Every structure is written in C-alpha cells, then in structure tokens.
C-alpha cells in the first residue's frame, strides 16, 4: 500500500434512541485491540488497523477489491453524549458502540402565581 492513500471509511449504521445512541461499524479483520474509539464534542471517532488473513509468503495478489490498511470514521452525534457510560463490543468483524444520552432534569415544576 502506498502511504499517500487516504484512510478508508467503513460503512456505519446509526440509531438514535430515547436513552442512547447505537452505532454499528463494519470492521472486518479487527479484534478489540485493533480498534480505537473516542467520544468528544458530540462526535464518535472510530479508527482501526485490521489484521489481514495470514497468507503464505509466496502469495501474489491477483484481484484486490478490499483495500486493507488503516481506516477511520468520525460520526457526528450530538452534545447529549455521556461518554463515561459508553460500551462497545466486536463480534465477527462488526463493532457495536452504545453511548447513553445524558439525562436532563425533566421534572415538572409548578409555578405558583403570586
């Protein structure tokens, strides 16, 4: 791979729930140590370096649709993210990130007329 190529952007699904955001990212070739996830300023940043399947040293590439190499993706959510409670898992090359929304005080307040 030449160094001047831009990072690949993986496909994502984004779900906006009442309680939390759920973001699903295709990260084939990755296990948990291959992916970095950060949440800041209402944005989720996912970066990774997938491991390619083991190939014999003598293997010569004939067709190359999957580019390989590092990938990165920034997903704008909103300012309600509670990063401290976020969780993530990787299963069979699919990363699922769950970020709860910060609870706002919604208690009703009765206003008395003087």
């Amino acid at each position, binding site marked *: 791979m030449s160094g001047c190529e831009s990072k690949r952007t993986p*496909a*994502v*699904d*984004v*779900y*906006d*729930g*009442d309680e*939390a955001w*759920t973001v*699903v990212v*295709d*990260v*084939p*070739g*990755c*296990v948990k140590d291959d992916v970095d996830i950060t949440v800041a300023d209402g944005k989720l940043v996912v970066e990774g370096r*997938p*491991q390619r*399947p083991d*190939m*014999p040293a*003598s*293997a*010569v*590439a*004939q*067709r*190359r*649709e*999957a580019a390989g190499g590092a990938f990165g993706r920034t*997903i704008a959510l909103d300012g309600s993210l509670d990063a401290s409670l976020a969780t993530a898992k990787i*299963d*069979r*090359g*699919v990363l699922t990130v769950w970020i709860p929304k910060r609870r706002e005080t919604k208690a009703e307040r009765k206003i008395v007329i003087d």
Partner: protein
Amino acid sequence: MAPLWHESFGEWSGLQREMNRWLEAARQTMDQVVGHFTWPPINTYETPEEVIVTAEAPGMDVSEFELSVQNQTLLIRSARKPFAQPEGARCLRNERAEGKFDRAVVLPATLDTAGISARYDRGILVVRIPKVAAARPRKIVVEEG
C-alpha cells in the same frame, strides 16, 4: 521481427494491469451509484501451490454462506441480516450492506476443486483451492553424464 515470447507476455501483463485499473475504477463508481453492487469485496491471491480467495463479509453466521463450484467458477452466496434496530430508535444512517449477495470468481482450470476448503474468522471468509499436481512448479534435476 516477431517479438520474443517473453516480450509479448510482458506487454500482455501490462495491458492486463491497465484493464484491471479501469475495471476497479468502474467498480468503485458503480458502488457509489447503485450501492453495494459488489459486496462482499473479494481479493484473490496465488501461490505456487494454491489460489486463495478472501471475502470481507463481517457479522455473518457461517451457515449464511453457500459456496459452490460450477464450470470452474467459485460462487459465493451469502445473506446478511439487518442489524436488530433498538426499540423506539430512529435509524439515521444505514450504510452497511444487508440482504442477499452473489459473487462469482472464475478459477483457472489448473485447480483441484475437490480439495477446496473455507474458513471464516474476524468477519473474513478465506477459501483455499489447491492446484492440481501437474500445475505446481516442479524442480528438474540435471543429471551428469
């Protein structure tokens, strides 16, 4: 003068490389226009002993793959379920491929398709097809005398 065999072969592989570049550019454009036209993306590799085909298809059950070989063509059929949408959540982005997919890879005739094996790990399917003995490189010992 007619070109030597290796010279014309060199021209031919240059032409093939150029054609591959064109096809790859066309494929990427098609993907952008019509969505997942070629999912899962496939790489192929060749060694002196075998041909290796990889398909990046994350999030599948192995039972969702159907592999077959017909007329020297490897057919990879797969069906990826959509992500189970969290209850009450709105879907704001849905880029990940879902549904049924067919990919076909034409194999050289020098492969032993009976010896095919496949493995799925970290969301990548790896199919290995050994070459027939006659197609593997053979060292010839020169005898003296």
